[in-house]
């Protein structure tokens, strides 16, 4: 059988060549370059990223900054209102009183003392009832809050994603068992149980002996323990949907191995939703920490976190005297950071949504 097309019934080779050339000359784009471009185009995303980066840098290098120590107390009985930076830019009252510092921080503080000596910033954001500088406490407190957020993020990433992915890929019995566990754990009033646990651990033991597990470790463990549940559920849902997706089936019919499918198809399609949920988890964890700190179950003095500061600030308002700078400073810091996280999460979600007809 002659299979070559008869002349005139077929478009010429020249036409085909011309068309092929045209198609080859168009630029190819990938998902992530699109995402980057869309993010960069949004002003709210740019500013959020800048703020968050600045915050991370500040919290890393805070021991180096010429700030007062966050734990150095003065003998004033009352909180002092803020003094504008141009009125009292610096003073020479630095006291190197910190809590337990890790070696790196100690070294940085040493460098700071050498560089600035006794100079420290003035009370630009006021002081609290024990004479501690608010600005310093806010910046040092950001470390705790960011650390808590990071820990929760890591936990939800590792445990949550693994749990959800395994459940999504496994047989329905295993999947059911795993998700039932998640259901039960989620329906427990964890906040109450957490408060139980922490308050009982906080109360002094009758013998006065040191507890085997430090309170802060428990705190972090507890935060991690509740953060991974929503992520597991979301990942499992996505993996389940992808498993029966047409493109996975077609990859399988072409002979792709399971590890290939996981690498090439599942991971890139689960990653976006994981990222978006991560940006949603972080704010709620920071709020959770603030909540627990308000009840007195958070980090212990002289360590400080934004939650502790917010709690102090809330208690500082009474009809008798108003130390408005005490709640306002932490409120602004927390609000700005969580706002940035929220806006970034929104922008990320919009950028990752391939169905949107934007850029």
């Amino acid at each position, binding site marked *: 059988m002659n299979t070559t097309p008869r002349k005139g019934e077929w478009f010429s080779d020249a036409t085909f060549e011309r068309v092929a050339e045209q198609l080859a000359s168009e630029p190819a784009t990938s998902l992530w370059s699109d995402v980057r471009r869309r993010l960069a185009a949004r002003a709210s995303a740019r500013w959020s990223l800048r703020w968050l980066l600045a915050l991370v840098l500040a919290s890393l290098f805070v021991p180096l900054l010429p700030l007062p120590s966050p734990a150095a107390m003065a003998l004033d009985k009352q909180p002092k209102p803020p003094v504008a930076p141009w009125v009292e830019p610096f003073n020479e009252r630095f006291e190197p009183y910190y809590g337990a510092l890790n070696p790196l921080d100690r070294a940085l503080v040493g460098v700071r003392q050498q560089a600035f000596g006794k100079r420290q910033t003035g009370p630009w954001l006021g002081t609290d009832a024990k004479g501690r500088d608010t600005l310093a406490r806010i910046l040092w407190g950001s470390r705790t809050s960011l650390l808590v957020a990071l820990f929760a993020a890591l936990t939800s990433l590792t445990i949550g994603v693994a749990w959800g992915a395994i459940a999504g890929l496994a047989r329905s019995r295993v999947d059911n068992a795993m998700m039932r566990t998640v259901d*039960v754990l989620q329906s427990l009033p964890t906040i109450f149980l957490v408060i139980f646990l922490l308050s009982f651990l906080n109360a002094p033991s*009758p013998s006065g002996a040191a507890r085997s597990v430090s309170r802060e470790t428990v705190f972090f463990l507890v935060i991690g323990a509740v953060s991974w549940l929503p992520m597991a559920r979301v990942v499992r849902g996505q993996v389940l949907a992808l498993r029966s997706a047409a493109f996975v089936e077609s990859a399988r019919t072409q002979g792709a191995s399971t590890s290939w499918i996981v690498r090439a198809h599942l991971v890139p399609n689960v990653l976006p939703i994981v990222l978006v949920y991560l940006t949603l988890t972080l704010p709620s964890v920071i709020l959770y920490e603030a*909540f627990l700190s308000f009840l007195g179950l958070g980090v212990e003095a002289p360590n400080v976190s934004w939650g502790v500061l*917010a709690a102090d600030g809330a208690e500082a308002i009474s009809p008798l005297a108003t130390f408005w700078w005490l709640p306002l400073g932490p*409120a602004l810091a927390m609000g700005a950071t*969580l706002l940035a996280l929220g806006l970034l999460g929104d922008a990320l979600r919009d950028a990752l949504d391939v169905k949107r007809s934007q850029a």
Partner: protein
Amino acid sequence: MRRFLLRRLAWFALTVWAVITISFVLMRSVPGGPLSTDRTLHPTVEAAVNARYHLDWPAWRQYLQTLGPLNLDEHGLLGDRSAVFGGILALDLGPSLQQRDVSVNEIVAQSLPVSAALGVTALGWALALGLAGGLVSALRPGTALDTAARVLSTLGLSLPNFVIASLLVLVLAVAFPIFPVAGWGSPAHLVLPGFALGAPFAAYVARLFRAGLLEALSQDCIRTARAKGVPWRAIVLRHALPGALVPVISFLGPAAAGILTGSLVIERIFTIPGTGSHFVAGALNRDYALAMGVTLVYTVAVYALNVLVDLAYALIDPRVELEKDA
């Protein structure tokens, strides 16, 4: 429908049992008993107290006593010899360990209406503000009004409720004494706490509703309605709204749970004598029975609300089948 309710009941029983058991284990595994304080008690006093609260019984017996439904004690706790039933399954939450001669049931009965009023107010604020904000945002997308509404709602999510509370008190109770700073008793006392408690959820509702409306309005069936010549107001209210409300209704379950937990802090700030402040006091004072009792009450409330939400969901959307597992 019946199968749905039965299955929910089974899960409920399991959850309650899990809460009771976990709480019990937690409380017993903490070093020192509920009555260990810095002061050491005289041995006879200590023995009497232990006997009264059954702290000298073996753990399994204490557990069964707490669980119920039978009262394993010959005397009955408050001297009532005829009590056959006791424990949680008999709806008896036991005596308070710190407040003498008061049962947890009494404490809860007194404080629950207060918390309920606060919770309902907060939910009301959340729905009113959230639905209004979401509607405005969705109908005028991209305008300054929309942006303002969205920034406000993101702000509401970015601050802990006690920070919002303190800022509110700062402005509306101290700087301009419009509302009382704290306390309970009149409707004016409900305003600030209710708003602070409901604000984060209003923000969430606004976002959900805005997204839901925008999504609903972009559907093909809206185009069909326009092609039929249906006026815009009818399209928004009759065609788009029901579908857009679905995510909001789904959110009511978690919102109620969140309002209940948030009340712990709000009641403390505004010194409202609700169940939440009793819980915190109980937890901090190691009053096991009170803390566990309140936890259980909250678990029941949240569970019941979630069931109601599912039922409402099924009512609105005819495609939903109740028996399907979420």
